């Protein structure tokens, strides 16, 4: 359907991913708040959180959140480098774009192994 009419480009794809991961991270802040309130409330409440975090859904969400953080962090730094006026030429743009994508996956893998 998209075929001849639209091609994914690094610029638009990375931009929308930055927005999407930002939204995901903000949602993740709610889970972080849940974790802390559960820890403050007591062992039963904390166990409830742990059951969720240990479940398949919970694990998928945690990996997703970890990747979102790594991606948003690298893409955000890329944004701020642009704010300083550097990196707009196309070769650099593509290089930093690939660093963002690959870096986020590598960092997520490191986090997941360490967990």
């Amino acid at each position, binding site marked *: 359907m998209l075929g001849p009419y639209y091609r994914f480009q690094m610029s638009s794809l990375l931009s929308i991913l930055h927005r999407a991961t930002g939204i995901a991270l*903000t949602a993740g*802040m709610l889970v972080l708040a849940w974790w802390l309130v559960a820890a403050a*409330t007591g*062992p039963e409440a904390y166990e409830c959180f742990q059951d969720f*975090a240990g479940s398949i859904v919970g694990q998928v969400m945690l990996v997703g959140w970890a990747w979102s953080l790594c991606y948003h962090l690298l893409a*955000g730094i890329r944004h701020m480098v642009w704010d300083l006026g550097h990196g707009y030429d196309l070769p650099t743009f593509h290089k930093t774009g690939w660093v963002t994508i690959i870096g986020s996956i590598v960092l997520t893998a490191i*986090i997941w192994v360490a967990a």
Partner: protein
Amino acid sequence: MTSLISKDRFRSPLARARNWGSARSGTHHWWIMRTSALALIPLSIWLVASVLGLVHGAQIDVVEWLQQPVNAILMVLFLAFGFYHGANGLQVVLEDYVHGEFTRTVLLLIIKAAALLFAVSSIYAVFFMSFLGGLS
């Protein structure tokens, strides 16, 4: 914000007084996103490293960890900057996709209220565990 030595100095006095300009406080928003982002770089790295150490522990481990002042303080800072940056980021998304001014304003107030509520609740939880050791 009314000083002539601020980012407002490129606006005419009348524009400043009436909060004109399509984004009204766009420059301010741009700046707070950057400063909160800068703060969140080290804080996020710290958070991930810390959570990795706590993920296999029990509730009591979290409480004891937060009883160390450095951890409690950094966690509060992460929560404050995280909700701040997140709420302002969502504001931008809202402004892009919701076009009715009334709906947009209501949703924005809801987002800011929710961010404040969750931020205060989680920061309270941190202090509760840090000073009182949690309930149990």
